[in-house]
């Protein structure tokens, strides 16, 4: 038995096969719409979303960069301004060096360790009892005045005792040394 395939009728106009070209046009439209719907449109949609997200992230990034720059500048400025304090608060107390510093104003006779305590959670306060001999209380004022230029952060505190003996003044005072924990 012979199988009969129905043939598309051939309609020609100026030598052009109208039916065939119509079919190809339809095929083109179908393929075009299919690719548009399946590949191009989702790509454009995704691209738009990603682009939006990109600019949103970029704005956030730029903002964080500006904030970081501002903070860095603020920190560096503050660090520069307070460099002496920062380093002074890191240094250990050196009795010999303190003796050398005090020698300009008085003759140090003893430095006794009293106690160590935590100050304001972040600092360590070491207390010493200092005894010294000096000729005039003026030297004590000068010493206290100049203590702000000392390489450590020191606080002169009570009790302060002046005792006159053999033409000299025996001085006793409490010294507190502060250091970062």
């Amino acid at each position, binding site marked *: 038995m012979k199988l009969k395939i129905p043939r598309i009728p051939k309609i020609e106009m100026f030598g052009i096969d109208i039916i065939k070209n119509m079919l190809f046009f339809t095929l083109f439209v179908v393929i075009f719409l299919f690719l548009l719907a399946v590949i191009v449109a989702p790509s454009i949609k995704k691209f738009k979303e990603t682009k939006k997200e990109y600019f949103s992230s970029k704005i956030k990034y730029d903002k964080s960069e500006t904030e970081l720059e501002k903070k860095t500048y603020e920190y560096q400025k*503050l660090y520069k301004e307070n460099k002496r304090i920062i380093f002074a608060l890191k240094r250990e107390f050196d009795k010999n060096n303190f003796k050398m510093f005090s020698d300009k104003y008085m003759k140090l006779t003893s430095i006794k360790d009293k106690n160590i305590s935590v100050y304001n959670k972040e600092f360590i306060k070491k207390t010493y009892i200092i005894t010294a001999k000096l000729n005039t209380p003026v030297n004590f004022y000068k010493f206290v005045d100049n203590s*702000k230029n000392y390489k450590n952060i020191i606080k002169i505190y009570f009790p302060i005792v002046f005792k006159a003996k053999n033409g000299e003044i025996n001085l006793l005072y409490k010294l507190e040394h502060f250091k970062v924990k």
Partner: protein
Amino acid sequence: MYSFTKARKKPLFAEDTKLWLIFIGAVSGLMIFFSLFLLTKIYFYQKDIKNFKSQIVQNRKQIIDFTQKIAFIKKEKQLVTEIEVNNELLKDGVKNLLDLIPDPITLTNIKIEKNYLYIYGVTPTKDVYNVLLLPPLKSIFTQTKTNFYQMDNGWYRFESINILKEDK
């Protein structure tokens, strides 16, 4: 059978069919190429987004770190300022106190505490002490107590205890 014309090769596709196939192929190719181009752009955008996000996290960490450092430096500065002010006040306090002592009175022992002052010295007469030293001491301290001990030369040794009670 014999033919006078040579057999021509029949093309697989007609000319117009070829044109259509090329056109459809080109358009499809362009669309796929365009999509691939967009996907490449998306890939680079996403890569940048990922970098931005990780950079933002790092920046935030650094900002927090700097903020903490700044706060700590301010704390250090405040502590040092407090100490410097304390030293200055202490010096002025001691200086003012010693300046109070009038010439005829000689001190041999002074003990200064935060709210307490002990003075031991020599005065020619009780009146010199009571007129020249006692009033300023009374104006500073809430409680003043003085004991006198007469010496062989007629002068007096005195012991003054002064207490400052802070208001509650």
